[in-house]
């Protein structure tokens, strides 16, 4: 069984003088992620739910090996992500709405380029290209400059490119941010199809309804700490997720005051 194991992850950002002034603090670093642990399994969608600045993006970027944690461990199956970032990256897809395809290229050229970077055998890559391009209806604009495509079309190109190598893990930061209803729906369908294909999917979001619709389990993150981590049913206990979250939030604030 594929699984992602996260142990005691900590990430501190050094604060520049300018940043300290802005945040009215004299501390020289900001703890964005404070000792979090969780497990995500294949065939499931795991959600990281939190408000602005809770530390979601920072966590996702550590998982994707874009940044290194100060301490803690990340294992994709048995591969240590901190020691073997390249190996991990060859098994995962990382997506955010601010990862952009190359505007000066076409979807087709983009696909070929990444197929080479992922070391996918040429014949197999071509076959898969046909299949993916038809599945995502990219064929009509496969040879059009990406700069000339609509936001939604670009999003689809990014999705296709992220799964070129048939990754076992899909990490998606704020998957529907800035997308219109149709594009957001397509992304949701994409995530669900990934899950059905037995992938281990981890998403982060501040949208409760998205978590309710697609997640099997979720962790609630606040100020860089996980304050709850359970199946959706257990978290909600008959309430809406929003209500459940608000209750936890109040409890947390009270605890801080004490």
């Amino acid at each position: 069984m594929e699984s992602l194991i996260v142990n005691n992850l900590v990430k501190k950002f050094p604060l520049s003088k300018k940043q300290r002034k802005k945040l009215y603090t004299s501390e020289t670093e900001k703890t964005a992620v404070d000792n979090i642990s969780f497990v995500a399994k294949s065939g499931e969608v795991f959600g990281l739910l939190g408000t602005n600045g809770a530390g979601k993006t920072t966590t996702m970027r550590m998982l994707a090996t874009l940044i290194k944690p100060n301490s803690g461990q990340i294992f994709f199956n048995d591969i240590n992500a901190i020691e073997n970032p390249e190996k991990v990256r060859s098994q995962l897809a990382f997506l955010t709405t601010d990862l952009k395809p190359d505007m000066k290229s076409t979807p087709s050229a983009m696909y070929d380029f990444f197929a080479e970077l992922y070391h996918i055998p040429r014949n197999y890559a071509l076959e898969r290209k046909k299949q993916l391009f038809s599945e995502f209806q990219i064929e009509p604009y496969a040879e059009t400059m990406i700069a000339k495509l609509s936001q939604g079309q670009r999003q689809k190109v990014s999705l296709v490119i992220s799964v070129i190598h048939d990754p076992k893990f899909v990490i998606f930061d704020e998957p529907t941010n800035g997308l219109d209803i149709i594009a957001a729906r397509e992304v949701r369908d994409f995530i669900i199809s990934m899950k059905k294909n037995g992938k281990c999917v981890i998403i982060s979001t501040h949208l409760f309804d998205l978590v309710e619709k697609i997640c099997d389990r979720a962790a609630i993150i606040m100020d860089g700490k996980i304050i709850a981590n359970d199946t959706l049913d257990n978290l909600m206990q008959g309430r809406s997720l929003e209500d459940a979250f608000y209750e936890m939030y109040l409890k947390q604030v009270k605890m801080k005051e004490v």
Partner: protein
Amino acid sequence: MRDIITVAKKELKTFFSDKVILFQMIFLPFVIIFGYSSLMSGIAKANTEPEKKEVKAYYMNAPESFKDPLENLKIKVAPDNNEEKYIKDVKNKELDLFVIFPENFKEAQPGQTDLSNIDIYYNSEESSSIELFSGVTALFTTMQPQIFTVNASPDKTYDLVDKDAAFRDLISSFVPLMAFFAVFMICMTLAANSIAGDKENGFLNTLLVSPIRRKDLAIGKSVSILIVAIIASLSTFVGIILSLRKLSDAINSGEGVKYGVSEYLVLLMALVTGAFTLAAVLLIVSTLAKNVKQATTVAPIFLFFLMIPSLLSTIPTFESFIKALGRKNYIIPVWNSVRLFQDVLKLDFSMLNALITFVSNIIAVLLGALLIGHLFNKEKIVNG
């Protein structure tokens, strides 16, 4: 290695599929150097009349009867007996005229055949020199020419003009700057777009998520810019060859300036290794920059490294400063390429200096590559 090639190939494909970039890379360097040279040759033609200055001329061994008439023409007795030096000075245009009488000049008796000869050295490129020369010859004609001859030695050259030197001085003042300028501009645009541009538009993040090692990504992008630097250098080189021909015609320098194969080879090597160093600097700037605008605002500062050695070398004070630097001139990257360029154009270069230049440039580029690889591993720099 495979990933490096993949990245470099993709970058080059992007460059080559853009017609404007293609033009900038292949024709612009040529157009800049050739266009500028044509302009300069036009100016050189129009400017053949130099500004008026104090006349400076010497005579040597003149008999008493000649002294007053010569002094009237503002020709003075030479301070010492260094005949060689004064001839050289006329050649270098530091002296307008040099008149030398045989040591025991004797006016011949009528009927005598072996007449004493007076040598008058002048430089036909200087109008003051020509004027003085005609003045002196006119004077001697009135002074009983049957008793001596003027400029009659068949084995001596009296007009000491060196048009080629004038030409070499002219081109070495602007050709190196123009040559590197074109390469600089094209590399700056492409490096900024390739790295800072990808950072700005989010594509770099997409690349960083793929399994490629960051160092390989950095090298792949750098290699593509170095290839562009080579192409632009070659275009510049062709421009230089054609310009030199055109310029030397314009200046009418007799047989033209003869640069041999070795001069051209050193020129090409100086161009390519110099362009590599510039490209490395521009790549580092683009890696550190947050966006294209920042990269293209900061990078031109480095143009000064090109301009300073080129422009200052035309100012006498700095000329002596550069001379005092000696071999050190060829250790400082970029500066060394411009210096070597000037040396070659003036036909005054040493192979050792050329070698020092190439080696120092290549070391600089390798260090640059290491630095870029290191910077790509810094999350603060690549992740924005």
